[in-house]
């Protein structure tokens, strides 16, 4: 049976975030936490594989206890079980520390043939997690996977289309394989009523740092993160441009056209 892992993340809905003009910091309170949109596409791709070839889909996420919400949402969409990695010790991790933590936890639970990730998150937006997870899993990786054409459990190979700037390459690749999924062919699944009922009752496997034997504490959380964020600042706003106000839409449009034609 194919063992499939899908990595997901709960993220703040950045479109709803506002900046405090006085302090120049982001106002985080009241901002809804959502499933990272592209992770839903990754899950959808995993479900497509399961529908065709069978298998078991495990979800994994790292975050505060509240991150359980996105696991239940994904269970309702069609995943089979879920692992939540939660501990303050994991906090403040960059992609390197996060990939080490996630892979350490996943390896405790099972050996996976296929690993799915969203292409990037809307909060960190580094797009680095896929490649760094693959490094830690010592697996093959297909970033920007467009379409999974074929999975052959017997030979341990799959055939995947990968989107490049100038076209699409079709690759045959050996399992275990991690893929970061392009959303084009894998729209998010809608949770079914039955799925929601099941997800509500499902038991979420929860690990803290203690639960992972041999976990190297120097490689997790803030201590395990080589990248730091010494400061943040609001984007520098240039001086506003000239506002055209000629009294009516027609007059404004005319003025605009004359400006365009000035060359």
């Amino acid at each position, binding site marked *: 049976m194919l063992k499939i892992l899908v990595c997901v993340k709960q993220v703040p809905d950045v479109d709803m975030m506002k900046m405090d003009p006085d302090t120049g910091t*982001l106002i985080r309170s009241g901002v809804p936490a959502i499933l990272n949109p592209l992770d839903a596409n990754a899950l959808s791709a995993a479900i497509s594989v399961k529908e065709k070839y069978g298998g078991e889909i495990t979800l994994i996420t790292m975050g505060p206890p509240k991150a359980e919400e996105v696991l239940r949402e994904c269970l309702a969409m069609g995943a089979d079980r879920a692992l939540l990695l939660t501990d303050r010790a994991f906090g403040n991790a960059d992609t390197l520390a996060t990939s080490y933590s996630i892979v350490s936890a996943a390896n405790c639970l099972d050996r996976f043939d296929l690993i799915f990730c969203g292409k990037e998150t809307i909060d960190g937006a580094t797009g680095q997690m896929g490649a760094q997870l693959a490094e830690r899993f010592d697996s093959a990786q297909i970033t920007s996977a467009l379409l999974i054409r074929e999975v052959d459990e017997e030979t341990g190979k799959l055939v995947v289309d990968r989107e490049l700037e100038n076209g699409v390459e079709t690759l045959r690749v050996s399992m275990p394989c991690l893929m970061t999924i392009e959303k084009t062919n894998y729209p998010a699944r809608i949770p079914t009523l039955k799925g929601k009922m099941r997800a509500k009752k499902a038991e979420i496997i929860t690990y803290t740092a203690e639960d992972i034997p041999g976990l190297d504490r120097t490689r997790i959380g803030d201590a395990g993160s080589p990248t730091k964020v010494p400061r*943040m600042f*609001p*984007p520098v706003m240039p001086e506003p441009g000239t506002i*055209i106000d000629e009294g009516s839409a027609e007059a404004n449009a005319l003025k605009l056209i004359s400006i365009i034609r000035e060359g």
Partner: protein
Amino acid sequence: MDKKAYKNFWVHIEHSEGKIHSVSLELCCEMRKLCDLSGDKLIAVVVGKLPAQETKKLLDCGADGILQVSGSGYERYNTEAYTNLYYVLCRKYHPSAVMIGGTVNGRDFAPRFAARLGVGCTSDATELIYNAGTGDIEFVEPAAGGKIMAVITMPVMRPQIGTIRPGTFKYAPAGKKEQTELLHENIDFDPSLIRTERIDFTPELFDPALDIAETDCLVCIGAGVKEESLPKYRELASLLGGKLGCTRPVADSGLLPYKLQVGQSGVMIKTKLYIGFGVSGAVNHVTGVSADKFIAINRDASAAIFNYCDYGIIGDADEICDAMLASLKT
């Protein structure tokens, strides 16, 4: 880790069919400026053969040296050989920084060799600052959807690794250095360790409407524009001899293809005239626009886009578009 033992800034030179990718040249130009401040040497790392006139371009950007790498395993891009290559090179030469173009393949191997080395990696900085006090590169990048700028540093570990999107920096060669060095390395990679095999390649069919990077005029629509209004913006773009583009939310909604998404995570555009309809002005979007004349139309007078435009109209995008069409057609 003794940071001082790590010297020189490297740029990975991506090339295909004998041509250097523009992003690699842009990076050489930008890193030259940092090298002048830090005293590091600028080293261009070339894997495989490059025609002499292309190598000359690297020297014209002010490279102090070219590290020419030969060996097997690099004919077709693959994660394994390139990850191993940079892992081996970094362990041997101890560069202070390695910069890689944020192409599909650059973004594929950069984070992976960083993880193998156990060092940090950043992506998509829009500005690089050398901090003489700390000796670190400060990677400045938009965060939280562009609402805030974050400064990322790697204060302890070396090398500092970063991927930068094409079009972020200008290609402005600083001129050839008096003294340049040519280094050579041969690193063979066992082909049996390459886990992918390319069985097909379908080049993208060229569609001029989807090629918006360099157009005389770009009509860009934002989330404020509704689906039923799309035809009028197409018409406006065509009457102005330009093309249609959009913001991330519009591409995310599926209204227009991703190839038309303007901004840092989409297409970086260079144009004479940009007209944004219902575009809010997120940093990730506006950093992707270089326009001689920048015009914005938005209902919301407080929209950030008005800070970036040369001329703005506070009003309904559809109404202005209709009025422009009426006027242009008479």
